């Protein structure tokens, strides 16, 4: 397989094999101090408040509402990831081939939203998709609709808003992977009789898979924790888990339950990640050596 060849070609040396591993220490210390320790404290909160014991977890697992919120969260995140991939793949491909003015325009289209405040972009969608928004006014002016379409406060508007925010992450990951692909391989395939579409599907797509996987992972995992966008653009059923956690901490003053839900999110995310890894083999695709002897 072409992917395997490409991976073998780049020797991967682990940090401790190079003798420079100690350079990681400041980063690890920082991570321990500002991430691991608070995480452990949060874990302690989840089993001590409001009462000691596993009560919060038992309640979270036995109450259907929480299942529904988890299901919504993963559904929305998966949908957003899929749409980002479908929109981002052609865009990243064009970015790798574009030159001159076109490249500048395309990069601006990707990066300017990336640098704009999340809140501003979310409110912008409320303006665009609203009853008196641009879309509805256009439809009504053209006589295509009598009454405005319900574009806001539903799953559609949540997905649109989140895709808009997460698309640059997908595009940058895909671009990084695609830029490294030797176009000579495509020429060689065509030289050997493949039609361009065949060469693209059998050579280019497999070689871009590391970008697809890393982009999808970043988008999916970031989407799981989304808060403001679903809160502002969603309807009553589009409640994602971060919203519920915030409610427990800041509205209901129940930190224990908030912490337990946060840990469940972490656990479920890890399970999904590990399952996907078993099926798709991320570590091979991402470039790590699985086994020396194969």
């Amino acid at each position, binding site marked *: 397989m072409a992917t395997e060849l490409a991976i073998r070609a780049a020797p991967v040396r682990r940090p401790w094999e190079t003798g420079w591993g100690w350079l990681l220490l400041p980063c690890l210390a920082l991570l321990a101090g500002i991430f691991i320790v608070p995480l452990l404290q949060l874990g302690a909160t989840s089993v001590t408040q409001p009462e000691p014991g596993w009560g919060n977890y038992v309640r979270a697992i036995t109450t259907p509402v929480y299942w529904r919120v988890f299901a919504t969260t993963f559904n929305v995140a998966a949908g957003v990831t899929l749409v980002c991939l479908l929109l981002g793949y052609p865009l990243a491909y064009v970015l790798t081939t574009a030159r001159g003015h076109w490249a500048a325009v395309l990069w601006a289209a990707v990066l300017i939203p990336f640098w704009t405040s999340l809140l501003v972009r979310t409110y912008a969608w409320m*303006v665009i998709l609203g009853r*008196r928004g641009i879309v509805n006014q256009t439809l009504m002016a053209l006589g295509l609709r009598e009454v405005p379409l*319900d574009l806001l406060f539903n799953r559609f508007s949540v997905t649109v808003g989140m895709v808009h925010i997460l698309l640059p992450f997908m595009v940058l990951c895909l671009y990084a992977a695609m830029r490294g692909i030797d176009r000579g391989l495509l020429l060689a395939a065509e030289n050997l009789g493949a039609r361009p579409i065949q060469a693209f599907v059998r050579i280019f797509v497999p070689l871009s898979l590391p970008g697809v996987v890393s982009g999808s992972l970043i988008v999916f995992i970031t989407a799981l924790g989304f808060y403001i966008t679903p809160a502002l653009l969603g*309807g*009553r059923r589009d*409640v994602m888990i971060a919203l519920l956690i915030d409610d427990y901490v800041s509205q*209901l*003053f129940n930190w224990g339950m908030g912490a337990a839900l946060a840990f469940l999110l972490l656990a479920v995310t890890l399970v999904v990640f590990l399952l996907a890894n078993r099926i798709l083999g991320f570590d091979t695709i991402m470039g790590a050596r699985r086994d020396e002897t194969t």
Partner: protein
Amino acid sequence: MSRSKQGKERITMMTRRTFLSRTGTGAVVVGVAASELGFPAVLRAQKAPLVVCGWGGTTTAAQREVYFRPFERETGIKVVEASPTNYPKLKAMVESNNVEWDVVDTADRMIFSGIRENLFERLDLKAIDVSKIDPRYVIDHGVGHKAWSTLLSFSTRKYASGNHPKSWAELYDVAKFPAVRSLRNAAFDNLEIALMADGVPFDKIYPIDVDRAFRVMGRIKPHVKVWWQVDAQPVQLLTDGEIDLTTLSAARIIALRDKEGAKADCEWNQGIVHMDWWTIPRGAKNKDAAMQFINFAIGAKQQAAMANQIPFGPTNRDALPLVKPEVLRNLPTSPENLKRQLLSDRTWWGENLTKVEERMKGWLLS
């Protein structure tokens, strides 16, 4: 010596060199040395600054003008602002014994959880004169100082000439008033609204029949387009004409109508009156000054000045006559408005908040 009075915060913000060059007095050097060497507070600045935590935005701006600056002038104690009031933060501060706030402007729904969790100091009623305050708003751990109302608010694009819904029953009447509706994403207020819509009189609302309230809310649920989280949302949505009817706090809707000229207005009938309280977090570093501040801020003159800035209802009996007549009609506690409204029962909410809000979450998702 005057500079050192401004307290430790000022000192730590400057380098020692610039500090010395600006003052150049021996007394200050002693003051700096004392604070850096950890000498007892008595050797340091005599009047430490007072940190007052409020809700931020226009409320804090108004409080700065009518409470903080005059208090500084009167006492020489510098007021440092913090915002917004945040219960988890307050709780974390008290529990870690690292309290940064001395006075907190606390909401109804926080105060009873806070007293149960022992987060507040008892007020020293020898230092605070509450003789003129409505006795309903004086409790061991706080003094009520600004009333606010939840009101039926509407777009005047949709309802121009007094033909808007005038009661919660009419808000619930989707046949007579077809409109885009919005309600708060909480059981808080909504349970009372549902019962009033179902014809329950004010004196029979509490204790709330929760089952009945949820049953009645079931009638409106499919017709509510937006369940708002923070009141900035309905403010924006009303301005944009995205919603026609919503609940909103009186001060927000009145500012929207009078200051920002939005096409929106409110109905006082069946409004729900709430209270915000001055409290002192347990372990506050500047407790005495905090008591002094509360005593100052609940004075009739100060409360009236606040009401003239933002129409929150004063609790000092002598304050209402000092309020401008054109402001009076916007106050939740004006006699005219008060008799048409329900007083939110904070004790009921203190006991039931968590339970009913959790039920609300499940209800909204189903």
